[in-house]
């Protein structure tokens, strides 16, 4: 039995409500990631204890899904919508422009300083503002949709984020004609 640390106790409290063989694994992982930002090895061990699973089973499940992370997220993530309406309106060019602006090569990736990340987004049926991305601020759990983009607007927005602008100021950059 690993040593009970403060972090471990905190995670244990978070997942205390969940039960084995009750379909609770996804909920437990969501809850821990919401509070801690990612699923640490320690967290997966505690979840495994709670749900009567092996830690490897928890990691196996977690790594199957796009949403779970195993390292702290960037301060702000640009969630790029991969849907068809966006793609028809140069979504592919916007993705390539975002990656080039942030100096990373593929989705998902973070800038070296951990300030900005690009992650994969899925269509949620708000295609009237295609092409779009969402800005997700980790510290506040705030999500801002930014629609009616083009590549130039996306680049201005990403440059602002990269250079330390706030989410609001970066969105302003994207709205500028």
């Amino acid at each position: 039995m690993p040593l009970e640390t403060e972090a471990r106790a905190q995670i244990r409290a978070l997942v205390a409500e969940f039960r084995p063989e009750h379909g609770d694994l996804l909920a437990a992982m969501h809850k821990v990631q919401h509070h801690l930002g990612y699923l640490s090895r320690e967290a997966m061990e505690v979840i495994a204890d709670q749900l009567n699973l092996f830690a490897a089973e928890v990691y196996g499940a977690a790594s199957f899904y796009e949403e779970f992370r195993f390292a702290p997220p960037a301060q702000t993530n640009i969630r790029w919508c991969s849907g068809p309406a966006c793609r028809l309106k140069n979504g592919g060019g916007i993705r390539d422009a975002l990656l080039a602006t942030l100096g990373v090569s593929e989705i998902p990736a973070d800038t070296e300083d951990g300030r900005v990340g690009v992650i994969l987004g899925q269509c949620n049926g708000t295609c009237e503002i295609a092409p779009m991305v969402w800005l997700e601020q980790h510290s506040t759990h705030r999500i801002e949709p930014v629609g009616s983009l083009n590549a130039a607007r996306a680049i201005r927005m990403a440059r602002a984020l990269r250079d330390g602008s706030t989410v609001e100021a970066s969105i302003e950059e994207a709205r500028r004609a």
Partner: protein
Amino acid sequence: MPDALERYDVLRTAADAEYAAWRNPERPRIDVALDQSSITNGALKTRDALERIARERNAVVDFGRVHGYGMQWVHPTVQITFPDGATVLYGPVREADAAAIIDEATGRWGAAAALRLGTITGERPGVPSIREHPFFALEPERRLLKNIGLTDPESLNHYIAQGGYRASARIFGRHLSEEIVRNTLNDAGLTGRGGANFPAGTKWGFLFGAPGTEHYLVCNADEGDPGAWVNRVVMEGDPHLLLEGMLIGAYGTKSTAGFIYLRDEYPLSIARMEAAIRDAEQAGLLGDDILGTGMSFHLRVIRGAGAYVCGDETGLLASISDERGMPRVKPPFPAARGALNKPSNVNNVETFANVPLIATHGSEWYREMGTKAQSGTKIFSFSGDIVRTGFMEVPFGVSLAKVLEACGGIEGGRALHAIQPGGPLGSLVPASALDKLILEPASFLPYDAMLGGGGIVFGSDRNNVLVLAEMFAEFVEEESCGRCTTCHGGNQRKTEIIRRVMEGDGRRDDEPNLMLIDKTIQFSNCAHGQLSPKSMRNVLQHFHAEYEAAMRGEDATLSLKGATRFRVAQPRDPRVEEAVAICPVAAFRGTPGARTIDEATCIHCQACTDVAPGAVVREAKPRAPRMVPIG
């Protein structure tokens, strides 16, 4: 002891009173449409502005909430309901329009005339009924959407006041035969709305007949097809309709517990479904001893985590059961082994949503709409290069050409090029098929295509069909669970080939290889693998000339990397320097006034043509006729 219907009547009386006061309010009420699309378009900011101005002016007005009516291209919308019960729809209503809306609601009729879209109920001089709007020309009657715009989606009482939960109370209270309940669905012709189209009553019968007492009824709300948001509209617009459908389903399958597996991309759907479950439990309509009948049904929402393949029922069941969400071989079918290894049944959101309607009005009523082969109505979501993006409910069988007309046609004066029904496992159908297609599954079969779950995307001639084919190839590759080598390996090869062709490096062998991959992937175990080659196959079937042109490095749409280049056409145009500044890869060479673009550096993102259209152009890449390599 009062029976279930008497208990229901008590609830109904209270609900009627509350709803009547909402329908004919003492003071005008402004309902802001709050759903995922409205909120994305700034509805919360609009609401804040409205409330602030109402406060500042001490305006005699109340505020409420509805779901958007379907016209997403004019979101955010608001509705004003006047004391005489007339409701007028306005949009798009931005923060700057708040004062006009407050004025219009509080006696200065005409202040927001420019924003009026139509009346939802009642009459107002000079305002047409919203039903006359061309977008709704194909909706003879709303059934699944009947409460949209006319109720607060977060109010249980509003749902009850519209007759909600009466069908389930009657079935439970009178102990109707489960078989009759299932047969009514089959008589109505209700089939699985997720796209598989299997008769719902028959499917329920499998679980009903399964051994044991622990049966799980599962709702597939993992609406992962990009371009489809049919289920979202049901869950955010009328969540109790889904709950009641599941409740009747629990009766028809002898289930005592159930799950709604809901994709995490729909946070508002999750919130509304969870709240609806709590409210229904508190009212005694769900949970233990429902309406005093002794029957129980416990329902929980399971939040997905971004895995498309969990839309396959065995993947979904694995995901609920604390495992990786990987589909598996059937049999055993879910009725034998499902959620948590117990007998289960999985239906789509919209399938369940039809159930209370059929239970209330009967199967004959249901068959009044639709075609002989496919009865009823269905919600569809339309997007892409069209003027009007939104959702509508139409009877099966309406013409797709008329749908495109209702959607305002293709935007920007362009021509329709490709029709994309059914998501990534669906199809790519050429524009020439438009006049022959009706919204009915069988209509799509001659094109080796499928109608699918209700999302239809229209693509214009701004894009080569390979742009969509590549998107779906990447999607199905990314979302392959990895169990079958045919699927995860085959889809990787397929994506590589498509990309190579798009970059102008196609080979003669690519087409036979794509066909070989197609035939091989079809031996995958689940529908994801089996259907994943469809869209590329459709390209070779229906867009062969376009594919061949791409092989030669030609592309009439100027959207493929391999066939186009960016060039400074007017070097002295001052906007060229803006293009230089925006370029994310520093592809411009030379000095101001004499700029050129280095083709090897350019990534074709289009930022330069965004800021300096005309001065920088995208044009066909001049090239000598290309010998297509064989290998």
